[in-house]
C-alpha cells in the first residue's frame, strides 16, 4: 500500500506534469531544430511565434465561444487551432518575405541571421502585447479533469490522489499525432525527402534540381504549425501570458541542442530530458521517501535537490554540460 502511495504521489507531481511539459517542449524544439537544419540559423523568434499563434487561437476561441460554438467536453481551442495555424502561417511567410529572404539572398552569416531573428522576436513580442495586453488569460473550457485527485482517492482507497487534467492528456495525444505526421512527411513524401536533402547538402540538392525557395516556404509552414500547436497546448495546460513564451525559449533551445540541433528525433528526446530534469531536480521527495522507508527513517528535511526558483538554471546547466562534452547532442546533430 505504501509503495502504491509513493508511486501515486510521484506520478501526480512528477510523471504526469513532466510528460505534458516534455511534450510541449518537444513540439517547440522540433520547430527550432527544423529551422536550424534547413535554414541554418537559430531562430530566437520561435518563442514569440508560439505566442503569436496562441494569441490567434485565443482570439478565435473567444469569437467561437461568443457565437455559441463549443466542442463538448473538449476545449473549444482545438476547433480554433486550424484557423490559428493558417493565420500564423501567413504571418511567418510575410516575415520571411519581408526580413529573412533578403539576408538569404546576400548569403549572410548565420550569426547575422540570429541577430535578425532577435529583432523579429522583439517586434513580435511587442505586437502580441499590444494586441491582447499583458494579462493572464485562461481560454480552456469544457471538462477540466479526466480524473480528479478526490475521485481517485475514493476510487482506490489510497491516501494519495492522482489528478489528470484533460489538457494534459490532449497535449500528449496531439503531440504523438503531430510527431507521427511530421516523420511520415519527412521520410515518405517527395517534398519531405527534398527537405532532408537540402538540409544535408545544399549544393548537391541545388544541383539535383530542388527549388530552394519552395523548401524554405514549406519549412516555414511546418514550423508555423508546430509553433502554434506547441504554444496553444502550453497555454491550454497552464495559462496564456504573452511574456511566458519568451521565457520558454531557453528550455526549448536547451531541448533542441541536447537532442542534437537539426535532428527531429533528438528534439523530442531533448524535450523530455529537459522537462524531467527540471521537474525531478526541483521536486521535494519527502513524501515519496516517507512512504518507502520504515517510519523511523522518515526524513526531516524536504529531500529537495534544488529550490524551485532554480528551475531555469537546470536547463542552463544541462545545456552547458552537453555543449562541453557532446557538442553534437545525444542524436548526432550539427555541432553549434
Amino acid at each position, binding site marked *: 500500500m505504501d509503495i502504491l502511495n509513493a508511486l501515486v*504521489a510521484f506520478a*501526480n*507531481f*512528477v510523471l504526469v*506534469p513532466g510528460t505534458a*511539459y516534455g511534450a510541449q517542449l518537444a513540439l517547440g524544439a522540433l520547430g527550432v531544430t527544423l529551422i536550424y537544419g534547413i535554414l541554418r540559423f537559430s531562430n530566437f523568434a520561435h518563442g514569440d511565434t508560439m505566442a503569436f499563434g496562441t494569441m490567434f487561437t485565443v482570439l478565435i476561441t473567444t469569437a467561437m465561444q461568443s457565437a455559441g460554438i463549443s466542442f463538448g467536453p473538449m476545449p473549444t481551442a482545438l476547433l480554433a487551432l486550424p484557423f490559428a495555424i493558417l493565420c500564423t502561417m501567413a504571418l511567418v511567410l510575410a516575415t520571411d518575405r519581408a526580413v529573412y529572404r533578403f539576408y538569404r539572398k546576400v548569403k549572410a552569416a548565420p550569426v547575422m541571421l540570429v541577430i535578425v531573428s532577435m529583432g523579429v522576436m522583439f517586434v513580435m513580442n511587442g505586437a502580441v502585447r499590444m494586441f491582447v495586453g499583458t494579462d*493572464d488569460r485562461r481560454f480552456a473550457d469544457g471538462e*477540466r*479533469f479526466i480524473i*480528479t*485527485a*478526490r475521485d*481517485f*482517492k475514493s476510487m482506490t482507497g489510497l491516501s494519495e*490522489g492522482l*489528478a489528470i*487534467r484533460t489538457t494534459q492528456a490532449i497535449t500528449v495525444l496531439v503531440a504523438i499525432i503531430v510527431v507521427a505526421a511530421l516523420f511520415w512527411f519527412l521520410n515518405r513524401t517527395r517534398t519531405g525527402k527534398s527537405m532532408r536533402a537540402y538540409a544535408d547538402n545544399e549544393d548537391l540538392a541545388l544541383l539535383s534540381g530542388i527549388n530552394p525557395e519552395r523548401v524554405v516556404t514549406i519549412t516555414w509552414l511546418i514550423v508555423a504549425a508546430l509553433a502554434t500547436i506547441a504554444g496553444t497546448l*502550453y*497555454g491550454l*495546460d*497552464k*495559462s*496564456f*501570458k504573452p*511574456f*511566458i513564451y519568451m521565457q520558454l525559449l531557453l528550455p526549448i533551445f536547451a531541448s533542441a541542442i541536447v537532442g542534437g540541433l537539426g535532428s527531429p528525433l533528438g528534439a523530442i528526446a531533448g524535450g523530455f530530458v529537459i522537462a524531467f530534469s*527540471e*521537474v525531478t531536480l*526541483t*521536486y*521535494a*521527495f*519527502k*513524501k*515519496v521517501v516517507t512512504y518507502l522507508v520504515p517510519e523511523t527513517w522518515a526524513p526531516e528535511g*524536504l*529531500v*529537495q535537490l534544488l*529550490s*524551485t*526558483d532554480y*528551475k531555469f538554471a537546470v536547463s542552463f546547466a544541462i545545456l552547458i554540460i552537453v555543449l562541453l562534452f557532446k557538442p553534437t547532442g545525444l542524436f548526432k546533430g550539427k555541432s553549434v
Partner: protein
Amino acid sequence: MKKLLLATAATTLMAGASYADEIKLGLMLGFSGPAESLAPDMAGGVRAAAKEISDSGKFLDGTTVAIVEGDSTCTDAAVASSVAERMITSDGIVGLIGALCSGATGAALTNVAVPNGMVMFSPSATSPSLTTIEDNGLFFRASPSDARQGQVMAESLLEKGVMSAAVTYTNNDYGKGLADAFESSYTDLGGKVTINTSHEDGKADYSAEVGALASAGGDILVVVGYLDQGGPGIIRAALDTGAFDRFHLPDAMIGDTIEDRFGTEIEGATGQVPGSDSPGGELLVAIGEANGYNGTAPYAPESYDAGAMMLLAMQAAGSSDPQVYKDFVMGVANAPGEKIFPGELAKALDILASGGDIDYVGGTAAELIEPGEAAGSYREILVKDGKITTVGYR
C-alpha cells in the same frame, strides 16, 4: 522712484503675510506602478481631511491647508526620494503624507525626511522593517505593521485547531516580511510551519512550487501572494493536484477576483484584511461621496486618518513646525479625551484650541502604538457559499 520701491516692499510684505496663513502639506503616493489603482482614493481621503480642517476656519487661527501632490512610484526609491526632496526644499511643506509602498516610504524617510527634520505619515506602508528604522520620532503610519498581521494570522489559525501550515510567499519585501512574521509567531505559539518558500509572480505554471509544498504537507496552505499575480496560480495548482483543500489568505489576496475565479472551490478558506467594526468607516462613505472618491476603498480610511491626525497634532501643538508637533501625534490619536469620528474634525479643533484632550478614532479606530504605528485591527473573513463573508474582528 522711492515711492515705487516702498510700494513694492509693502506689497511683498503683505503678500508674505497672507502667505503665512496657508500651510502646505505634501501628498506623495504611488500614482504610478504596481499599486497605482489604490492611489486615487487614498489621495481623496487625505484631501477630504485637509479640506474639512481648512474650511472650518478654526485651524491655527484660520490657517488654510494646501496640498502639494507628487508621484513617489511604488518601487523606484530614487524617484520617491527626489519627489520628497523637491516638496521639502522648494515647495516648503510642513508635513509629508506618504508614501504608499513600504520600499518608497523607507527610502524617502531615511534619505530625505529624517535629514530635513520633516514629519512623515504613511497611510499604507506595512513592512515590519519600518518599525525599527531610525526615524528620530518623525515617522508615523496609520497602517499596522505586518508583524501584527502575522501574529493575528497565527492566533486565528491555532484557535481553529490548525496545528501545521505550509507557507508560500511572493518574492518581495512584503511577502517575505509577512511570511517570516507569521512563521515566528506561529512557531512560538506551538504551531508548526512545514515549509516557508517563495514563488515568483508572473509565471504560467506553479505545479513545481505546489509539488514542494505538498511534499512538506500541512493542514492548510497560507498563500502570501498578490490577488492579480501568482496567488491564484498557486491556489489553482494546489486544487488541481489535490495537494491542499484548505487555504488561508492574508490582506493582499482578499478581493472580488478570488470569488470570481474560485467561488465554492475554496469553500472554507479563511483570511484577514485590515478593518474594524468601528462606526467611523460608515461615516466615511458620505464624506467620500461629497468629495468624489470611494471613502471605503482599501487604505482610503487610513489616508483620511493620516491627514487628520497630522493636522490635529499641529493644532494641539499650536504650531506647524515639524520639530514641535511631532510630539503631539500620539496624544491626539490615543485616549484620554473626547472620541473624534470622521466629519467631527471641527469639533476636535475647538477642543484642542481650548486646551482639551481628544482621542482620534476616525475611520479605522486609529490607535497608535510605539514607535508611531497603528495597533492594527483586522477583519476576519471566511469563504462561504463561494462568497467572502465577515466572521469577526480581532
